[in-house]
């Protein structure tokens, strides 16, 4: 395990140095990433200035949802990007090289690329989260802060799991990836707002099938002390970051199944 982390860090450092070989292009990508996500939040702000609130939620509260989900997504975009580009490796045959190394395939794929430019999205999420907390003028305890951090990490794992699923699909088909984008990019859009504003079936899907609600909704219910219309008790909110971990582990099982399939078809 420790050895695995050490290897992953070596991959990360190589990936970073590769990207910094072209500093101008790297800077432009970061700025672009920051600008795109920044404009996204501006549109939300514009909507609020028109309508005042979203159901029972104020803008600073929604800012917390927004900030957390974007930080979580930025983590997985940076760290699990290798899974996102796997279909290219499979098509070109470079995935064979990964099978020829005496290490876990998932670890090696994760190491294919670490996208530092995602600090753009991460920073923007952090700024929005911070702004939300200040505007709410609430004092949060250390435990609550810990819950927020854990929820963001759990969310990172959850989105990474989705990237793993997407990569696994590429063992069967190179073209069916858009389906997964619905749940990754679509998931980010969805979880920017409190999940209680959506219709029942939609809410259930993002609670029980892909547990997006655990990234920010459940933890924030506890922190903001809102009663959940679904009737989920607050103590469960404190466990919700674990859902991301469980989801990620399950996705890795699916991944291993996909690798076995690759062994027998070679494509």
């Amino acid at each position, binding site marked *: 395990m420790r*050895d695995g982390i*050490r*290897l992953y860090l*070596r*991959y990360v450092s*190589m990936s970073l*140095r*590769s990207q910094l*070989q072209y500093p101008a292009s790297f800077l432009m990508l970061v700025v672009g990433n920051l600008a795109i996500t920044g404009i996204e939040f501006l549109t939300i702000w514009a909507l609020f200035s028109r309508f005042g609130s979203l159901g029972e939620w104020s803008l600073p509260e929604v800012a917390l949802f927004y900030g957390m989900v974007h930080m979580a997504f930025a983590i997985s975009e940076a760290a699990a990007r290798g899974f996102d580009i796997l279909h290219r490796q499979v098509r*070109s*045959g*470079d995935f*064979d*090289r990964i*099978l*020829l*190394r*005496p*290490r876990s395939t998932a670890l090696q794929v994760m190491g294919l690329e670490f996208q530092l430019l995602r600090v753009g999205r991460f920073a923007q999420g952090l700024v929005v989260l911070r702004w939300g907390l200040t505007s709410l003028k609430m004092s949060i305890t250390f435990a609550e802060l810990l819950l927020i951090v854990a929820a963001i990490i759990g969310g990172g794992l959850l989105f990474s799991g989705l990237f793993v699923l997407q990569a696994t699909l590429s063992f069967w088909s190179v073209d069916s990836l858009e389906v997964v984008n619905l749940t990754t990019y679509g998931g980010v859009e969805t979880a920017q707002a409190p999940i209680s504003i959506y219709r029942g079936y939609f809410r259930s899907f993002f609670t029980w099938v892909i547990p997006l609600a655990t990234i920010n909704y459940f933890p924030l219910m506890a922190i903001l002390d809102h009663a959940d219309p679904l009737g989920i008790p607050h103590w469960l909110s404190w466990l919700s970051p674990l859902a991301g971990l469980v989801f990620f582990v399950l996705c890795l099982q699916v991944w291993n199944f996909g690798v076995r399939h690759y*062994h*027998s*078809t*070679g494509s």
Partner: protein
Amino acid sequence: MAQIVVQDLRKAFKVAKREAGLWNAFRGLVKREYTHVQALDGVSFEIEEGELVGYLGPNGAGKSTTIKILSGILLPDEGICQVMGRIPWQERIDHVREIGVVFGQRSQLWWDLPVIDSFELLRDIYRLSSADYRKTLEKVVDTLELTDLLEVPVRQLSLGQRMRCELAASLLHNPKLLFLDEPTIGLDAVSKLVVRDFVKTLNEEQGTTVILTTHDMDDIEALCSRVMIIGRGKILARGKLKDITREVARERRLVVELDGDYSKEYIRSQVPGAELVKLEGKQAHFDFDPARISPPELIANISARFQVRDLLIENQPIDEVISRLYGELHI
């Protein structure tokens, strides 16, 4: 037991039929038709530790499929395959720790970074102790003359330099078995010789088993004690290259430089027992079968009728022999 034992290996691929045209592309979304390609159709062989074996065959004959199965990437449909007592795909991690693979057409080095960075990554991947790593590195750097290349980003290397680095990269963990898939493809003459020398020394001094696939017959002639020829999924010939080619290439070639210009027809009429295959200016190339006409007799015949400036007997060019062999084996 031999280091590699392969018995009656079979592998078929399902390949989606794609017909030309936009309409057919759309139709393929709904209904796909598959063709069945039998890549390996009962392949058996054994390879002993320390051998240097050439694996030949035209494109699509099943070479890469065999290599992929032996290296644990691919699962066969049927048959037995044991490498160093292991079934490669069942014990992937233990298996790949002891083999090295070089694909001539693909790189394992990080494109934008200095070569040494890729080597250090491999050190971590294979969990090499720094003492072992340094010892092996020193040795390969020395024999492949990489000292000046280590700090150069891979993208700036020439193809020959890169291939030397690829070879080094696949040997850092001291594999007992090395697969080389077209290692000299596209290389200039000097680089080819360096690679060849290195492989030969590696095999002789360290006893590393090497399986080499190539289309370069000079590689095979220079290196391989034994060859196997595969075609349409079957091993069609095996043994020493000389013995295999003797069957199809009983004939020797005599190149004569004549002192004067003659027409093909005239030369043919004057030299029975040998076939004039080529006439380049004053140089006439004859193929003859030494069992039917002895070389001294043939030379005597020719010098009795022509003024001869120079002559040379050689084996037929190996490429021609192999392509004739493929023809005879119907592959």
